[in-house]
């Protein structure tokens, strides 16, 4: 993306970070976005991740200007754009299911924004943009004549050609099939790196968010549960919601007595465990002891458990073979079913249902989360879908 000169598109100098300050949106008595504050650094790829109805799309629409915040600010650099009409904002959107103008051809769709800003000679820019999204010869076609993936790229070109300060993507890949989605994820990431524009990407697909974004914010009920780099969040989630929204977790109801040392001792179902203090979001009272299924290993007997690992005993109650791995459910002595993934690396044999096993983990992979009083174990159960497939 070297060809787009500031002269033809009138792009202003980068305005700076996008900051949302105490942003709130209420529809009647329903609070869609609740006092949200966050900073999205200029040039980053930011993902807002959450289930439908969590407020992520409303947040995006407030940034685009399609929704008026009930209160709060949307700052682009130092300028509050929260009250600007959408067509006055240096922000463009790739809409869910694209919203391409059906009565205009691809060329005119892409040229739409430039023309509205009074730019007369748009040909070069449009052709360059179509080349960027690899649709060079499609200018004269109508949107309905294009496949979903092609439409998606037109929508991207139509927004990017305006060189916005911020590009908003509202579930841009939701309508594509799995393979195409993969491909577009890589392509989107490539384009973002190329143009260096701030991307704010809304999605409910945790894997999409993790693979593409520099920073992910998990939203729940109008608030941000946790925000950070994908790997950090996955390895050390902040809340039970995040632990089960980003991947899945075995969460055992436990009590922590607090501790001053480097280890936090906890008691769960009568057994004693410990977690490094650096991996405890709570160290006193009701806590969850969390272990990811792929970090839970199964052994035939206690003497096979490596030194330093902690363990519980149980019986295999279900085994499902999913190719790259086998997913086991292990029923513990107190009745909960823990989930464990064993890679089918050919090293160990497969365990039959009914086998007595020892489930063990390295305490450095466990984590402690706050738990509301009275909450019982939250275990992953069998996955609806194998790891590696997105919803």
């Amino acid at each position, binding site marked *: 993306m070297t060809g787009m000169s500031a002269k033809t598109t009138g792009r202003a100098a980068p305005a700076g970070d996008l900051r949302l300050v105490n942003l709130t949106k209420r529809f009647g008595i329903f609070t869609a976005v609740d006092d949200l504050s966050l900073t999205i650094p200029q040039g980053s790829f930011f993902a807002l991740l959450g289930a439908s109805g969590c407020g992520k799309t409303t947040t995006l629409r407030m940034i*685009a*200007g*399609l929704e008026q915040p009930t209160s709060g600010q949307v700052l682009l650099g130092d300028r509050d754009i929260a009250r600007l*009409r*959408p*067509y006055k904002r240096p*922000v*463009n*959107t790739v*809409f*869910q*299911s694209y*919203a*391409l*103008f*059906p*009565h205009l051809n691809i060329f005119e769709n892409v040229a*739409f*924004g430039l023309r*509205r*800003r009074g730019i007369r000679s748009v040909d070069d820019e449009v052709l360059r943009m179509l080349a960027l999204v690899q649709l060079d010869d499609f200018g004269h076609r*109508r*949107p*309905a*004549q294009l496949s979903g993936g092609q439409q998606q790229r037109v929508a991207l070109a*139509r*927004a990017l050609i*305006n060189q916005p300060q911020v590009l908003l993507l509202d579930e841009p890949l939701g309508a594509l099939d799995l393979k195409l989605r993969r491909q577009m994820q890589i392509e989107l990431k490539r384009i973002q790196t190329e143009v260096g524009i701030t991307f704010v990407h809304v999605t409910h697909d945790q894997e999409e968010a993790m693979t593409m974004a520099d920073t992910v914010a998990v939203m729940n009920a109008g608030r941000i549960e946790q925000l950070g780099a994908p790997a950090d969040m996955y390895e050390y989630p902040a809340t039970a919601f995040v632990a089960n929204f980003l991947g899945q977790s075995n969460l055992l109801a436990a009590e922590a007595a607090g501790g001053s040392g480097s280890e936090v001792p906890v008691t769960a179902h009568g057994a004693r465990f410990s977690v490094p203090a650096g991996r405890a979001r709570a160290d006193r009272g009701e806590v969850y002891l969390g272990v990811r299924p792929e970090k839970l290993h199964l052994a035939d007997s206690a003497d096979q458990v490596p030194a330093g690992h902690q363990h519980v005993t149980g019986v295999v109650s279900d085994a499902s073979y999913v190719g790259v791995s086998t997913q086991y459910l292990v029923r513990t002595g107190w009745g909960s079913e823990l989930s464990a993934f064993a890679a089918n690396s050919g090293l160990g044999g497969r365990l039959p249902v009914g086998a007595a096993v020892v489930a063990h983990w390295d305490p450095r992979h466990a984590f402690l989360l706050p738990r509301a009083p009275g909450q019982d174990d939250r275990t992953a159960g069998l996955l609806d879908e194998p790891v590696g497939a997105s919803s």
Partner: protein
Amino acid sequence: MKFSRWLADHWVMGVALLVLGYLSLPILVVAALSFNRPSSRLSYDFNEFTLDNWRQPCATSDMCDAVLRSVQIGFIATVVATVLGTLMAFALVRHRFTGRSGINLLIFLPMATPELVMGTSLLALFVSAGVPQGFWTVVIAHVMFCVSFVVVTVKARLAGMDRRLEEAAADLYASPWQTFRLVTLPLVLPGIVAAALLAFSLSFDDFIITNFNAGTTVTFPMYVWGAAQRGIPPQVNVIGTAMFVIALLLVGLTSLRGRRSRRAGLPVAPAAGRRAKSPT
């Protein structure tokens, strides 16, 4: 055994074709009679083949005057009703306001009220207000009963339109007026055209309401009504056949366009069937 199985599978289609025959028969008769030289003024039977009626459709000049008047009334009523109805449809689909249910009722009731009642009540109004009846009272009446159908038709098209297209336009620097001119209007236009065609055909063919409010003005249906007592000139069937053919061509055209816009991913406006009343 085999035959009864076949019958069980196909009797519905058989009945349907018979009913379609019943529905089509009168049109065939009208077309045939347009080539008829009747034996007497009051005879309705086919007598002798001739092309005279088609060669001289205006042999009875009153009839052609009536047709022309119906076209004029239909045109004016269509323009007014289409404008009024389209504005209302926009308000109903695009805005929240108090009193919506009252407005909906006001739009629905004319479609559910017998024409006889609307015709006589307008007559009562015009007489008590001392308004002389004629061309313009007919126009007023026609606009009144066409508006609701326009609202319903345009509303369907508007409601089927993706709001995100307008948001996308706003997002791409189009002012509200540009958004309307470049996106909304081109996408709603087929619905407005369908509504206008519907309004015209309703107006052109109305007899009952017109009959009570026309005074001495004679529209085509009123001419036919009057002629039915005195003897029908065969040219009436020429007009009837021509109307049919023109309407058929229009439908063919719009369905071609419809197929095109369907391919372009647009919702297609309801067919311009006359009085395709759809309860809301």
